């Protein structure tokens, strides 16, 4: 379990994390979604004691990170897969962590097996690793101490589609076994596939939160018909609100079944009838990304 309360981190005049409160529950994958520079990484660094908070509190398993005894055995952390010494071999990187946590060398070989790194790859220096291999190594490092909590910053970066699928099912199963997973991404569909709960962060603030079902619930119904005059009349008389979409269809604020029944009763032919896209989350996310892109262009 991870909890933050009114977490604030300022850099001079700039507020990177503004009054962020959330809980990541055990048994669930919590996705931290936001455009680049929204404050995801800063929040994760504060959670792991690497960056001091300006105010507010952050606890993991009920304690501030710095008070955990042998934290690697409680919390697996992967914040930047490329933050490793390029002159060290992959296996050696894992050995260092194992020795720090007091784990035997055979755990290192086991972890390489788990993430699918061969012994031969383990003998190569990190300078020759692809980003995907570094992510696997980082994940092995995070999982090594058999932690109950995982904090992962953009873990899918650099993985190929099969790798992403592999990681998704690994983290899903890990959560099913009772683990807490907090992972970040700047890609909506990635979070959509992997997370049970979603936190959306923009400009340092949480702008939306909820279960995936709540946030991605279909929004109304999209319907298309060759005789839209009849349908719009029927919709109006049934008291259903609708808007005409750009491609000649209608977006109706009602369930698809209701719209279908209404169309059948009025003998209207339909060429399309489906649940509406969740404009809300996607649009909000696009707006966040766009405003961020503007700032970047201005800078």
């Amino acid at each position: 379990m991870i909890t933050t309360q009114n977490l604030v981190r300022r850099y001079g005049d700039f507020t990177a994390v503004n009054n962020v409160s959330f809980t990541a529950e055990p048994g669930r994958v919590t996705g931290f979604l936001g455009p680049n520079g929204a404050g995801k990484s800063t929040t994760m660094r504060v959670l792991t004691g690497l960056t001091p908070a300006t105010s507010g509190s952050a606890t993991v398993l009920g304690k501030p990170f710095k008070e955990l005894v042998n934290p690697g055995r409680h919390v697996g952390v992967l914040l930047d897969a490329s933050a490793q010494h390029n002159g060290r071999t992959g296996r050696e990187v894992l050995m260092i962590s194992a020795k720090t946590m007091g784990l035997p060398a055979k755990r290192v070989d086991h972890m390489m097996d788990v993430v699918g790194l061969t012994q031969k790859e383990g003998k190569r220096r990190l300078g020759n690793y692809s980003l995907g291999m570094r992510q696997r190594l980082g994940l092995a490092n995070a999982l090594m101490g058999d932690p109950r909590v995982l904090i992962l910053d953009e873990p899918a970066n650099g993985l190929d589609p099969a790798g992403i699928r592999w990681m998704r099912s690994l983290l899903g199963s890990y959560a099913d076994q009772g683990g807490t997973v907090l992972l970040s991404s700047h890609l909506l569909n990635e979070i959509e596939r992997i997370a049970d709960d979603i936190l959306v962060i923009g400009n340092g603030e949480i702008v939306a939160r909820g279960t995936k079902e709540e946030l991605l619930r279909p929004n109304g119904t999209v319907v298309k018909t060759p005789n839209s005059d009849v349908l719009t009349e029927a919709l109006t008389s049934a008291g259903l609100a609708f808007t005409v979409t750009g491609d000649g269809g209608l977006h109706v604020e009602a369930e698809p079944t209701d719209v279908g029944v209404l169309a059948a009763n009025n003998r209207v032919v339909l060429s399309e009838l489906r649940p509406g896209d969740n404009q809300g989350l996607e649009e909000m996310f696009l707006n966040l990304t766009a405003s961020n892109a503007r700032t970047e262009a201005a800078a």
Partner: protein
Amino acid sequence: MSTQTSTEAPAEAGREAAAELKQSDLGPIKPIPFTSLLGVEFRKQLDTRSGQWLLIAVAAIAAIVMAVTIFVETGIDPAQSWSWMTFFNNTSQPLLALIPIIAILAATSEWSAKTAMTTFALEPRRARVIWAKIISSFVIGMGLLTFIFLLAAPMSWIGSMVNGVDPNFEINNWLVMGFFAAMAISMLLGSAFGLVLMNAPVAIVSYFILPTLLTLVGFLITSLATFMSWIDVNASILPLIMGMEPTTEEWQKIAVSSVIWIVVPIALGFWRSMKREVK
């Protein structure tokens, strides 16, 4: 059918991986003893390419200097040309400058290579990690000098045989103790420069340039010469490796300049490392 199997394979592998994680029992969770951190810091200094090249450079310089010493007669005192102390002295001189780089790299690499993110996530009490770095590089420096000291004896014997003189294994206590003291100061200096500057190239250049620059200032501005002689650590440790007991004033200069260049930067370095955001 086959396509379905291949797309399902990674997901299946992921589930298996998660199941495998739960199979092993890692035993009870114990606090991290300082000896573990010490052992890890030892490893980190010797397991990278730069660490290994440094050791190779140390070995190469020792080999070259000892080989040259075997075949070259020093003019001052021919009887001393191939003594144990001559081999020890000749080899230790250049290594006294090179070996402290190990301490500099140990102190800076976490920040240069960004490994601090992993290190301090496993041990958030950063001061313990820094102490482990200082102590482990200190021990490595002393260990290498001990190795040179021991190696110098058989080399001296070979030199004596090649040149047909009687072996001279007489030990000059002040020379041996002085080199060990100078190495101790230099390793701590390396740690201090690394800790306070947190950047390997900057720390290495400063380590070599800054004290020399001070010597130069003292040389050019004669009114400052006395003052500089008290803060120039490079000059102040020289009496240690002359094979004679330093005078009281020399001891005082060693103490004063060491405090200035070791204690102050190490304290500053600790403070910076505690405060610095890791990213």
